[in-house]
């Protein structure tokens, strides 16, 4: 569905379902340079099992208009405002990579409007290396290549994935290729410069689950586990043989973890 929100067209994937205020809502937030389609299997599952399932394209991404927001706090505020605009009640929020920072900040700022959080491919601080930031700033295709290769376990290039016949490497490349100029850099820089994680963690009252890949090269497990100590009662699920892109690399294990985290 498309709505006009904050002066721009905003696209929200619902798998064709109308939102029902009587249902609980789950929201999925994509990562840097990506769009809603990374969540399709999960949106389809939850929408057919008693939930409003929404996966917005962040401002300036995918089918949403406007300029990309440049801070994690800005994205979190945008997301909370979107919940209000959609008239949905307490929301369970899952975010991946940059989206996990947005989910963390939204849970801190949203109070009772956020009832649970799942942080996938999470790390804090989410420092981005200079070669990647520089390439993204220059809209150099090397940024796409770095994100594609480092964004998955090495085995992802070999393949053998759970969705038959798809090349996850090439699907990721095409998604990143489709990002408008400047968007990948805006996203990566927002991750790189975000400093509110510790304060956000202290404010969060809702249940938090981290879903991590043990072969994640972008946000390694060790750092995420360390940060989890600052989140009261945070549950950590580690998916074996999985890199940063768990929704594509291990969709079934990610599904099972999300059902536990968001139900």
């Amino acid at each position, binding site marked *: 569905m498309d709505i006009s929100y904050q002066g721009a067209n905003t696209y929200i*994937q619902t*798998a*064709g379902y109308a939102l029902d205020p009587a249902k609980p809502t789950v929201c999925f937030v994509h990562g840097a340079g990506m*769009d809603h*389609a990374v969540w*399709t*299997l*999960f949106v*389809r*599952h939850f929408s*057919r099992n008693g939930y409003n399932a929404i996966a917005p394209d962040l401002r300036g991404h995918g089918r949403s208009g406007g300029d990309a927001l440049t801070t994690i706090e800005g994205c979190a505020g945008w997301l909370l405002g979107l919940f209000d605009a959609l008239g949905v009640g307490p929301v369970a929020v899952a975010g991946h990579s940059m989206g996990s920072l947005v989910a963390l900040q939204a849970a801190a700022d949203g109070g009772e409007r956020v009832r649970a959080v799942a942080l996938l491919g999470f790390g804090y601080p989410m420092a981005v290396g200079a*070669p990647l930031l*520089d*390439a993204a700033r*220059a809209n*150099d*295709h*090397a*940024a*796409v*290549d*770095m994100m594609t*290769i*480092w964004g998955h376990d090495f*085995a992802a*290039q*070999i*393949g*053998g*994935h*759970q*969705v*038959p*016949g*798809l*090349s996850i*490497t*090439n*699907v990721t490349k*095409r*998604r990143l*290729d*489709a990002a408008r100029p400047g968007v990948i850099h805006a996203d990566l820089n927002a991750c790189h410069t975000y400093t509110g994680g510790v304060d956000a963690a202290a404010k969060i009252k809702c249940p938090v689950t981290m879903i991590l890949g043990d072969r994640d090269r972008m946000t390694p497990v060790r750092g995420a586990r360390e940060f989890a100590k600052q989140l009261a009662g945070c549950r950590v699920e580690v998916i074996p043989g999985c890199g940063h892109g768990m929704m594509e690399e291990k*969709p*079934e294990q990610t*599904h099972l973890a999300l059902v536990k985290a968001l139900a």
Partner: protein
Amino acid sequence: MSGPRYLGFDTLSLHAGQRPDPTTGSRATPIYQTTSFVFDDAARAAGLFSVGRAGYVYSRIANPTVSVLEERLAALEGGVGAVATGSGMAAIHVAISTLVGAGSHVVSSRALYGGTHNLLAYTLPRFGVETTFVDPRDPQAFARAIRPETKLVFAETVGNPRGEVLDIPAVAAIAHAAGVPLVIDATLTTPCLLKPFEHGADIVVHSLTKFIGGHGIAIGGAVVDAGRFDWEGSGRFPQLTERDMGLNELDFAEDFGPAAYIMRVRLEGLRDFGATLSPTNAFHLLQGLETLPLRMRRHVENARHIAEFLGGQPAVEQVTYAGLPNHPDYALAQRLLPQGCGAVFSFVLKGGRAAGRKFIDALQVFSHLANVGDAKSLVIHPASTTHARLSDEALAKAGIEEGLIRLSIGLEDPQDLVDDLTRALNVSQK
């Protein structure tokens, strides 16, 4: 600025799509010879049926052995995904039928494999789909033929038997300007020699039966999707841009983004038309694919050698091979096919049909049969086989000389091939 490296073509030919079997450790791809797959529980079954979870249901739609082949082909072509089919013609049919409906129109090169020509010229019109055939050497002819109801442009990388080389970048630009995808049959070149997606094509089809298998023991085909075509922007494909109540309420472009087309090929094409590749044939084709880069280098080397040899023979009127400077597409071939123009070409023998028959019967290393792309060298004389019922006049109208011989050059010692051809050429002129 350089980024990290992707795996190379030769490595992907061996490994893409397969990791050692997690249950047994089998290094080779296991043959999952099963029709169906047990669901862990009712919830997983419901999720699989509603396209809310990933996995296997029924081998008509997806099978783990076949998926290895599909993923490998997608990796080699640089596509987002592939669907394997029971034959090359099945691949062409499902590639086209995913895009067209009654009232649709296709623009196609007229330099086509006979089976493809038959599908477009005679079979699809019965279902309300018309085709306009154009000269592949005239890109503007494609532009002139496109209509509001056109859904795709179709052509082969290199024509058979004349070796017309398609100017893929030019034709792709014309197709895209009109909002339609370019579908390319790349059977004769394989991704070793030419990757059509790098030149602007949107969809590639293969007969895997030919060079990709290479051994001549298994029939198969595949459709590969570049994942770049703007289905929403085109406005001509509601089957990809609107929610389909007959297909799990999917809106393919919205739900699958760059994989929209190939997901519909699988979920509609295999489900409803059922032209599935068997796991055993997928296994056989994978064995061939592992050595494709090595074989194609030798195929091309031998083909160039034989073409040059034939060009110097007094019994030969003309050799049609785009790798020779006298071919009209030589310059284009140098640009698009720098590693070689494949190993299928033709020549015209002096002496017409009678000489052609004598030539064929005198060959001992070449096999006389209706196929191309085998590891063994193959030959056919259209005037006495595929086109035998045509009069001399009708043959000329079809552009086939009475003495036309088509060769598919294999991997034998090239001197043995030269000796075999020398013997047969001598016999043909007596």
